[in-house]
């Protein structure tokens, strides 16, 4: 099988952001740094005076920080999980989008973790979670599965990056020393490719249960308590669905920006957005299904403690957030995504932004109404976030975008070797596969048993 060894040739556009400087980059860095600075000021204030500078109170013990934690960890499901599923399904259109998805995972997960640190009254003791950790606490389950997820996702991002780093090392002149170290002596030999594909093949299978476990245990933080509105078995899968949903939306937004900023219309085509749009539509409906099941069950059971939380969402204090969530997570995306005509880049951007906002609100609607409506009527509360919490949200977002931006200036955000490989071997491979599906086709010889990871490697080696 021919391997991509050509000089960059037609794919020069993919390394352009790394080689050429761009005034827009510095403007973006400036704006983002301002956002980060504001977050830093807010956090310093909080460290100095205590968590009292937030809108938290008794009984609203958890607020935006915990919402951000769930939200950012949810976004992180964009990457690795979607990339793994597309690779596993051998969807040819994945080639241009997997990298941008995987980067989201690795970068955004840091902000999920740091949001919990922001929430601590004593962040100086955060290390106690490791040195004095109790495995009985769902928070420790989070620590374990997020650590594993971050590690595996980082490897899963790095491995397919190696051939591209080697391309940068060999064919460009910038930061040669860095790329030489990171390329790990990649020469593009057949043996190296075979090992790489085998490693990716194993990782993409392993990472799926890990990703699912991550958001399941995030939901367990809530579901393991007996509090009304939280103590539900549906929470695990509900959170996973929500995570993938918000993750795809974030991925689409990232792709739109990359495509616009680096003029990669040739790589991130309308068809990619159309396909992702279908995926987002499926998740819209799945999300609605879970939400509907959750709310109907609670309402029909009509336990007074549960209903107090339920009504506070549907027609009480949290009705604005709740109904905006419904509009953003169901009405807007469904109206846009269900028609082929509106599954264009522009409309998909609208849908994705709506979903991202809606999913943040969804977490708000899960966390806050429950904490301010505890079982005992001793203290029914209110929660109004302060500038500190909003600034931290802005700071986290800015920092995440900055890291993402920096990545695109150091590494190709669209995988070069996978595009080249697709150009060289993709058509043949797909034809072969197609032949193997069809009755009485010339390529009737049976493929090795249906083990996707292994069979892909075998195919790659043939």
């Amino acid at each position, binding site marked *: 099988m021919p391997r991509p060894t050509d000089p960059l040739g037609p794919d020069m556009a993919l390394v352009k952001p790394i080689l050429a400087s761009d005034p827009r980059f510095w403007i973006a860095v400036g704006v983002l740094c301002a956002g980060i600075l504001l977050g830093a000021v807010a956090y310093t204030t909080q460290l100095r*005076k*205590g*968590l*009292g500078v937030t809108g*938290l*109170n*008794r*009984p*609203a*013990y*958890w607020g935006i920080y915990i919402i951000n934690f769930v939200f950012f960890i949810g976004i992180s499901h964009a990457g690795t999980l979607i990339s793994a599923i597309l690779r596993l399904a051998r969807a040819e259109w994945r080639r241009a989008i997997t990298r941008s998805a995987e980067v989201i995972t690795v970068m955004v997960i840091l902000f999920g973790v740091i949001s*919990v640190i922001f*929430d*601590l*009254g*004593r*962040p100086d*003791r*955060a290390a*106690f*979670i490791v040195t*004095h*950790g*109790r495995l*009985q*606490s*769902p*928070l*420790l389950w989070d*620590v374990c599965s997020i650590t594993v997820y971050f590690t595996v996702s980082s490897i899963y991002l790095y491995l397919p990056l190696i051939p591209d780093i080697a391309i940068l090392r060999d064919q460009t002149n910038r930061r040669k020393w860095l790329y030489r170290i990171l390329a790990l002596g990649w020469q593009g030999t057949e043996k190296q490719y075979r090992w790489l594909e085998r490693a990716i093949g194993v990782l993409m299978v392993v990472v799926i249960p890990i990703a699912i476990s991550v958001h399941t245990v995030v939901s367990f*933080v809530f579901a*393991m*308590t*007996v*509090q009304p509105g939280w103590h539900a078995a549906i929470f695990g899968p509900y959170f996973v669905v929500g995570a993938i949903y918000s993750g795809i939306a974030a991925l689409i937004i990232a792709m739109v920006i990359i495509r616009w900023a680096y003029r990669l219309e040739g790589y991130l085509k309308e068809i990619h957005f159309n396909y992702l749009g279908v995926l987002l539509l499926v998740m819209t409906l799945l999300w609605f299904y879970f939400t509907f099941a959750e709310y109907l069950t609670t309402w029909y059971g009509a336990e007074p403690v549960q209903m107090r939380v339920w009504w506070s969402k549907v027609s009480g204090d949290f009705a604005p957030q709740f109904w905006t969530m419904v509009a953003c997570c169901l009405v807007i995306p469904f109206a846009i995504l269900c028609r082929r005509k509106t599954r264009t880049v522009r409309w998909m951007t609208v849908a994705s932004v709506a979903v991202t906002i809606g999913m943040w609100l969804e977490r708000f609607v899960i966390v806050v109404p429950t*904490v301010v409506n*505890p*079982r*005992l*009527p*001793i*203290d029914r*509360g*209110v929660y109004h976030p302060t500038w500190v919490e909003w600034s931290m949200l802005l700071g986290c977002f800015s920092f995440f975008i900055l890291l993402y931006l920096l990545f695109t200036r150091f590494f190709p955000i669209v995988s070069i070797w996978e595009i080249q490989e697709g150009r060289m071997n993709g058509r043949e491979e797909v034809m072969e596969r197609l032949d193997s599906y069809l009755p009485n086709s010339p390529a009737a010889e049976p493929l090795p048993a249906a083990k996707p990871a292994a069979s892909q490697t075998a195919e790659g080696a043939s």
Partner: protein
Amino acid sequence: MSDEARGGKSAAPPAAPGAPRAAEEPKASARRHARWGMVIDLGRCTACQGCVTACHQENNVPPSNPELAAERRSIRWIDLMPVMEGEYPHVRLSILPVTCMQCEKPPCIKVCPVGATFLSEEEGIVGQVYSRCIGCRYCTNACPYTVRQFNWFDPNLPATYRDGANPDVSLRYKGVVEKCTFCNHRLQKARDAAAAAGRELLPGEYTPACVEACPTRAMVFGDLADPESEVSNLARSKRAFRLMEDLGTEPKIYYLREGVRE
């Protein structure tokens, strides 16, 4: 109350496993595990808040002020909870002093990621380790009674308060969770005094500040593991109930219904 189960668990080592409750044992033996509990007679409680004030004094709980109260950030280890029943004009208001329920199966302890809160085997008291607490407030959210308190700021103790602070109770600082400890320091003192005198701790020697302060003797404190104690007898009365018993947390605070004859 499942005295059988508890007796089996708390029996002294030489006793046969699953031995019936500690009735035959000598009272308050040092080896016997106590189950300190409280009964609050709502028929006697006048909602005077003497217990609240006594608790603030005893445990160095900073007094509230209008700003803190408006922010809902006052710290109270014991609080009065009004419960309104019925509809106008046939309403009945009861006021329940609510403190940490000192559950036998505390949901707060399970969720703590660092072991900053614990159920003492010996006493059955739910304790809080301020120097371990990381302030994640998972326990405050997991507690169905919402009785755990958080230090949003460094406590603003007035100078007079600080000078007269109880030296037996550590001052808290911003960022940690605190709650009623059943005046655990009083138990330690009483036990030390008893040990110095070369005898066992006698019933009545250990009483939390709120119970001591109650002018109508609405609060009764004692060892629930001792079936002869006043608190055990009251806890078995027909008027006794606990808050949210259906959650299975097994609180050790009992209430006696008001307006009901035994």
